[in-house]
């Protein structure tokens, strides 16, 4: 496999991740450099997210980190999709950081996880985004393409 700059950069991130991750973030799997899974937990006593673990899926393009990774929550029996006014029930996250506009190459997997942790920590509303059902039923676009339309959303 040719090693483009994405692979090089991700291999560096991976070695760092294996060394130490901030509390509440764990690497689940990193098979190759296209897709990684990480688990995050909200550590403070926010009643919405207490004692829950959420699974994140990162998908990297060969242009990472120039282009943002595609980050979504994935659900499984013991990994629900967190309740948040900017997280759709299919796991798609509405966060400017992950859009073409808000992304910066200095961000990394760890910093994205931490941003999401803090996005959950600061939330008090037990609700989904407006039009969630409709969106979930109809959306076929990749998250990176959706972000294109609502980048100016402030979280």
């Amino acid at each position: 496999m040719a090693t483009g700059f994405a692979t090089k950069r991700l291999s560096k991130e991976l070695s760092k991740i294996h060394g130490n991750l901030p509390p509440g973030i764990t690497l689940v799997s990193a098979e190759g450099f296209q897709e990684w899974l990480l688990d995050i937990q909200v550590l403070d006593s926010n009643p919405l997210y207490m004692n829950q673990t959420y699974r994140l899926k990162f998908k990297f393009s060969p242009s990472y980190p120039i282009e943002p990774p595609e980050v979504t929550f994935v659900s499984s029996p013991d990994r629900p999709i967190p309740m948040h006014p900017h997280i759709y029930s299919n796991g798609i996250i509405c966060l400017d950081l992950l859009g073409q506009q808000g992304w910066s190459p200095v961000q990394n997997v760890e910093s994205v996880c931490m941003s999401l942790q803090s996005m959950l920590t600061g939330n008090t509303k037990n609700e989904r985004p407006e039009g969630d059902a409709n969106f979930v039923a109809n959306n076929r676009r990749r998250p990176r393409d959706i972000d294109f339309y609502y980048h100016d959303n402030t979280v």
Partner: protein
Amino acid sequence: MNANPLPDDAFEIPDSTDWLATPLPSLAAVEAALRCQVCKDFYTTPMITSCSHTFCSLCIRRSLTHDGKCPACRAGDQEMKLRQNWAMEELVEAFKKARPEVLGFATRPVERSTSPKRKRVVEEGEDGSTPRRKRTRSGRRILPSSQIVALDSDGDDEDYTPEEEEPKDGLVPCPICQERMTVQAVEAHIDHCDGEPPSKKKGARNSTQNPTIHKAIKRPERLPHPHYSGLKDAALRKKLADQGISSSGSRQLMERRYTEWVTLWNANCDSKNPKGKSELRRDLDLWERTQGGRAVVSWKEQEIGSQIRDKDFDGKAWAEKNDEAFKQLIANARRKPAAKASSSSSGSGPIQGEAVDGPSVALRTLDRPDTESNEQPRATTSLVTYKGSQTRFFQEPSSPGHTGPLPSPQRQGTSTLDKDTAINPDRTTIKPLEP
């Protein structure tokens, strides 16, 4: 590191965290400061932006080409305004040179009482055989004194002298610039020595063959990024050919290739030791394999979206290429309302009527959330859920083999729609989120 999916020796990845396990953890911060935030590697040809952030030349040029903003602070900047950060470059080179030594020293067993002038030499044993990058816990244990021999002078002092490595090549350093050369050559060299140190790591070693010639490589001219919109295909092809690089592929690929070439080229111009053109071509070849024309298919699929958004997009060719897929979609779309009408007489007539016009209209039918949201508007979902009463449509001779997963052209066809802003069904659902 046990969970690393890659064999450790496939990627030798020195990282700033290597210091954390040593008695010198504070060096982790030092090393982190010498690494580029974009590639996480040591700075290669560091450039400073207008906002005074430093990145590798290639990293910042790629970033600026992508969105014209500083990766660190998101302030707008231009490639023209980048300046070399020589101090950083020297710092990085010096640190890189010192790193293995210092790390090796830091991971060696230490006994506080030894005078700093003395160095322990571990006699050949399982621990002392190699200076280790990653220290294991066992490396820390104090070895029995019988295994430790303290030396007073000789070779051990070299760790403490500034010129740490004195290659035994029979050469002497120039007293002015420290470049190494034969004794005879020094005299001739001193006359025109400008005091500039030999180009750091490569120069010092490679110069042994031809020491007297202080090669002042003429820096190549930087290339401008062309305005692609005003550039005809033929002109662009000529530009590529002039640079000696491939002019194959679509217009969009050619543009991306030329942009990458300009980026590589200009970053090379910044370098203290510019590479040759053939080496740059190898770099471009790597790009071609990872992101360009020979990249994996999944990447191509992603690219299709932006290609269609492009105003130079050749819609006709696209329509022809995907004609079959579109027709199949149209056929599917027609059947669906028909089937609906037969089961429930709800008003699906208009949709059927619309569907005859062409691919985009037919696709819109599939994509329309208000009329179809309850009935699996997605082509892919449809295939799965159609198993019941509607299976028969896929057994018709007109669309054989349509029961399996969709052929890729069809997926491309639908992704056409996905990215077409004009008919974006989800826009309304997203809008409420905007402040």
